[in-house]
Structure formats: C-alpha cells, structure tokens
C-alpha cells in the first residue's frame, strides 16, 4: 500500500459563524479513487475546495504530494499545478476556444511556447475524445463536451491528483455518460482522484473507497460494497436508503 498523496488532518472551516467542517481527517493514497458522498450542506465540496486552498481552512493541516498547502511560504500557484480541479459548472473561459482553454495555463504557468502548449493541449483533448472540437468555443459545445474540455484543461498540466466537484450535477442525463467515461479512463490511467458526486452507480463500479460526510464530519468510510451494502452508522443508512429509492 503506497503512502498518502493527499493528507488532510483536523480540518476546520468556518464561514462567519457557520461551522462547516468540524475536524475532518482524510488520507488518499496514490492511484486511489475516493468518492465523497453526503447530503447537501454536509461540507463535502468545502473539504474538496480546501484541498487546493480555494477555501482557506480555519484550522488543521493539508499536505498534497509532500507540499504543505497551508504554509505561507508555499508557492500556491506552483502547488496547484499538481492538483487538477473540475467544477460542477465547468467554468470554461467563454472567450477562448477549447484549445485556448487547455493551453492557457500551459503557456502562462508552465512557460511553454505557443506551439508546445497547443500540442500538449491537443493531446489532452484527444484523451477526452474531443480533438475535433479544439477550435470550438464553449458556447458551441454541449454541457458534456464542456465538462470534458474542463477535464482536459486540468489533466494537461499533468497533475498528481484530480479533484472533481459534482462534475455531472449540471448535466442533462444523456450527457452524463461521456463525462463518466472520461473519468473512468482517467482512473484506468492510474490517476489519483477525489470525487464529490451523487453518481452512486459510478461509485460502486469505480471507487476504491467511499467516504460519507454529514454535518461537517466524516461519519463512515469504507469500500463501496460495505458503505452501500452494509452501512454501520444510522445516518449513513438513512442517506443510502434515500438515494436508493430514487
């Protein structure tokens, strides 16, 4: 079993007086796919956003690939290149083509020439099967295609870990499959992934470990068959029950 590549310890997060994360410990091993589930408001997205410091944790420690994310001396822009993130609302840059979206950080952050960045960007688009859409603007792509471009934008930087924040929640049902397929292929390539999502079928099939959060705490975690098939905690059972009924 390899060492943890993501390690969060005792993470607290307050939004004003609201205590959203109440001491969360999460360790993710290399090549592991951890699935985070829980009711809305349970803090799962906040936890994910703390991992790359889009949210500043109020307390605790976070280490990613050996880098102390909360150390003031850490070059956060450099650290973030190792952590790809995919958002619920895609967040593609609407004034750039798919290729431009993927190439931007390669050029500006990794300092590649335009030609090198675009070549790498094309490879990334090929990995999500969108090479033929390189010249399209986000507004000309379906939601599913946009999300796959967003995945390409993240993996082009060759991150050590990928964070997915409800990647399919904003998609029409018929577009979900393509995004899950891209995630599955990413997983098969050995990417370490932390996924916040309600796609329980995908969790059963692909996750190594499922983490159930409620009220800002991790209530229960384990392999998907244990969490879905035989949850130990009452709250987990209630949540799984609710999900299964749908």
């Amino acid at each position, binding site marked *: 079993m390899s060492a943890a590549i993501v390690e969060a310890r005792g993470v607290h997060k307050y939004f004003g007086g609201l205590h959203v994360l109440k001491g969360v410990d999460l360790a993710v091993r290399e090549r592991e796919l951890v699935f985070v589930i829980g009711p809305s408001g349970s803090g799962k997205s906040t936890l994910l956003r703390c991992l*790359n410091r*889009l949210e500043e944790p109020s307390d605790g420690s976070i280490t990613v690939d050996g880098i102390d994310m909360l150390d003031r001396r850490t070059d956060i*822009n*450099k*650290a*973030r*290149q190792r*952590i*790809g*993130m995919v*958002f619920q*609302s895609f*967040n*593609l*840059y*609407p*004034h750039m083509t798919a290729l431009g979206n993927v190439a*931007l*950080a390669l050029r*500006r*952050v990794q300092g590649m020439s335009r030609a090198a960045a675009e070549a790498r960007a094309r490879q990334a688009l090929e990995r999500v099967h969108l090479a033929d859409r390189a010249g399209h*603007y986000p*507004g*000309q792509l379906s939601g599913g295609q946009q999300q796959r471009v*967003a995945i390409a*934008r*993240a993996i082009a*930087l060759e991150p050590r870990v990928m964070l997915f924040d409800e990647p399919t929640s904003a998609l029409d049902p018929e577009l979900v499959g393509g995004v899950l397929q891209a995630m599955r292929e990413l997983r098969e390539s050995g990417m370490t992934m932390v996924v916040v999502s309600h796609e329980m079928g995908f969790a059963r099939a692909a996750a190594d470990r499922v983490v159930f959060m409620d009220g800002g705490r991790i209530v229960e975690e384990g392999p998907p068959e244990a969490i879905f098939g035989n949850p130990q905690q009452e709250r987990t059972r209630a949540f799984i029950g609710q999900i299964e009924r749908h």
Partner: protein
Amino acid sequence: MTNWDRFLDSFFNARVAAEYLPKIIEGFWLTILLAACIILAGVAAGLALAVLRSLGIRVLNWAIIFVVDLFRALPPLVIIALLYFGLPAAGLSLSGFAAAWLALSLVLMAFTEEIFWAGITAVPKGQWEAARSTGLGFLDTFTLVVLPQAVRMVIPPLTNRTIAITKGTALASVVAVQEILGAAQAGVSFSFNPTPLTLGAVAYLVLFLPVVILGRWVETRFAWKR
C-alpha cells in the same frame, strides 16, 4: 413672405450656409479632435481606476469611489466652468480646449470606472476559481480571463456613455472653443440668421450617426460565438 418662406429663410438660407460652412467644417474637425482626446483619456483612466479597485485595497477604494461619485454628481458644465474660470484665480490658466478636455475626461473616467467595475464583478466567481486552480496567479487571471470577459460585457453601456459624453463637447462652446456649436453660434451672431445652427446639427449627425452604427457593429463583433 409667408410663414413657410420665413422658416426656410431662417433655417435653410443658402447664402448664409455657403458663407459659414467652412467655419462649421473647421468646428467639425475640432469636435472630432476634442472627442477623441476625451475618449482616449477618459476610458483609459476609467479602466485604470477599475483595475486598481479590483486589487481590493480598502483605503484606495474609498478614494476611488469618492472621486468617481464626485464627477458623476457634478454637471459637466460646472466642472468646465470651475476649471476655466476658477483655476486662473489659483494662478493656473487652462485654454478653453484644455478645460473642456479635462472636465469631460474626468466625467467619462468616472462613468467608465463604474461600467468596467460592474463588468469585472459580473464575471462569475467560478472563472476566477478555474483559473487559479490551474496555477494562474491573480494578475494573469485578471488580465487574461476576467478582464476580457468584463470588457465584452460592457461594450454596449460603454458605447452609450462614450457617445453621451462626447456629445458634451458642445459645452466647450461656453469657454470659447470654436467646435461645431461654438462655430455655429458665432455664425448666428454675425449673420443674424440661425442657418449655421442647422449646419451644426447636420454636422453632429454626420459625426455621430456613424459612431452609433459603429457601436452596434462593435457590439456584435465582440459577442461570443454561440
């Protein structure tokens, strides 16, 4: 002489028109020069203020908001008068052209700052987050991701405001600048006939109609491909 003849003689007098057309044309070019200087300085200064404001330095933002509200509240004519008639008392004389340019540039700056600021804040937070999550810094995110979207969004109100302010160049006639209106009014005084004002109105149309149409074109040109 019927009323109709009198009307034609007053507003469409060919002899007066021929005599004062060259002055109006001179005024036309002066208006363009003044307007161009105002747009350049006003939009650039307004954008600069909006950029400074996004840095989020509180004291600086208070100062920016104070200046912006000041120049949005004051009538442009009052500012022109203050600069032209008031500054000499402080030992600083501005030409009518300079006073009008400075006053209208300050007003345009104030409105442009608000417009750009509105555009910048209207760019979804997710755009910042996406860019920052790929390791782009604040400055790159702002200039390459946020600002281009903000600028596209504000092209329509910016065009409108720019046209409105540049029409204010007519106020410069008050401080003896022989732009279109100044030249027309001088013509009226000399000829005792309002025809130069008609010429002036036509000159404004010739000047601003293309600008309005150009504004439309710019709006469509900058729209995102959908």
